[in-house]
């Protein structure tokens, strides 16, 4: 398959969204797309183009019991989410070794930071654990001068440890330390002048000894993925 041929690649992306790319061709394409951000972007473009067809569906009222069933299912899946049990606490540390954390992006700035002034919405990234539980919400003012970090969820940290936040610029192998993440409540982290130009970049979180001086390199690094998002709150 000529993956360098732009038209062929575009068709593969389109047919992947449409669902007509099947079998070995689909598997090959999905392997390839894992390594090719440009293909992911083109696939997303097709996703947007073709799935706009969904808007054209005629409205049909759903059966009256459907909502109750949805509620009962999310109740079952999220019970006790505010009070992490042993499994969740253990899985946090398992998550460290598996490097399985992920970052995701949300926009509900005022919801997660009710005490913050609404006039500096900036950008928001939510860091979640492997159970999709939000742990920190990071908000950055538009001038990139500082980060407002809110502890959003429970996490079982062993005594004598802390989490540090790092920024990895696009295309760089080196993470740059921004500061320590709060155990609870919120914290402001000033973005050094020389790091402002590296934003947007990728956030990384490391585990450090609580009493260690600010490290130049992360000790135990947890890889995160995510992109910055222009906020809705900037709209008038």
């Amino acid at each position, binding site marked *: 398959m000529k993956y360098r041929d732009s038209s062929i690649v575009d068709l593969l992306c389109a*047919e992947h969204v*449409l669902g*007509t790319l099947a079998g070995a061709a689909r598997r090959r394409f999905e392997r390839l797309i894992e390594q090719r951000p440009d293909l992911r972007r083109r696939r997303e473009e097709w996703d947007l183009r073709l799935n*706009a067809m*969904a808007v054209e569906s005629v409205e*049909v009222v759903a059966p009256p019991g459907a909502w109750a069933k949805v509620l009962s299912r*999310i109740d079952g899946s999220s019970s006790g989410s505010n009070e992490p049990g042993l499994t969740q606490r253990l899985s946090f540390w398992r998550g460290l070794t598996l490097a399985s954390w992920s970052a995701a992006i949300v926009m509900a700035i005022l919801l997660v930071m009710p005490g913050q002034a609404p006039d500096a919405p900036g950008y928001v990234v939510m860091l979640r654990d492997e159970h999709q539980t939000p742990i920190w919400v990071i908000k950055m003012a538009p001038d990139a001068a500082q980060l407002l970090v809110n502890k959003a969820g429970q996490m079982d940290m062993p005594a004598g440890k802390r989490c540090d936040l790092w920024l990895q610029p696009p295309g760089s192998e080196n993470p740059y330390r921004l500061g320590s993440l709060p155990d609870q409540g919120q914290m402001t982290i000033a973005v050094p002048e020389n790091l402002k130009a590296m934003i947007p970049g990728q956030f990384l979180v490391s585990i450090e000894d609580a009493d260690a001086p600010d490290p130049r390199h992360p000790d135990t690094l947890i890889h995160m993925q995510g992109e910055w998002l*222009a906020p809705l709150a900037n709209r008038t």
Partner: protein
Amino acid sequence: MASPEELAILLARCALKDRQAFERLYRHTSAKLFGLILRIVKNEELASDVLQDGFVRIWNHAADFDPRKASAFTWMGSIMRNRAIDLIRRGHTRKSSLSNSDDLEWLADESVAPFLDEVDRAESDRALQRCLGTLSHDQRQAISLAYFRGLTHEELARHLNAPLGTVKSWLRRGLLRLRDCLESE
């Protein structure tokens, strides 16, 4: 239905496990999504199951939504469509539905034309409609069947009673033409 911005905010609140937002999201979108699913699976009970699965997934993965890549409804519609198509590919739903002559007729008539009468669309949707309108009937029908029924190349060829190569050509030329048209809008 609520505006795309309202839906995006509701999704963001769902990511933070805001039940009230989730309920409003359901209220605003479930009828449209149910219509989409019903169109694919053509069975109310199965459609209800897909709708429930889809909303549970939306609740669990709301934080993955990125408004730069798609509108909130497009994202939710994509979840529902994928689940509906998975269902008909896994089970016998398609086989039973395709053995029904009414359904075959419905499939044969599948096109975007019935939607052209709808009003109050977003500009991007109007652009899609305009561009779909520039495709040949065969191209439009092939894309629409694949989208709404999840048919493979071979199934499309059988349904449209056309050689496999011809169907692939309809699809591919139609998709490229659609892309060029949307980019020029």
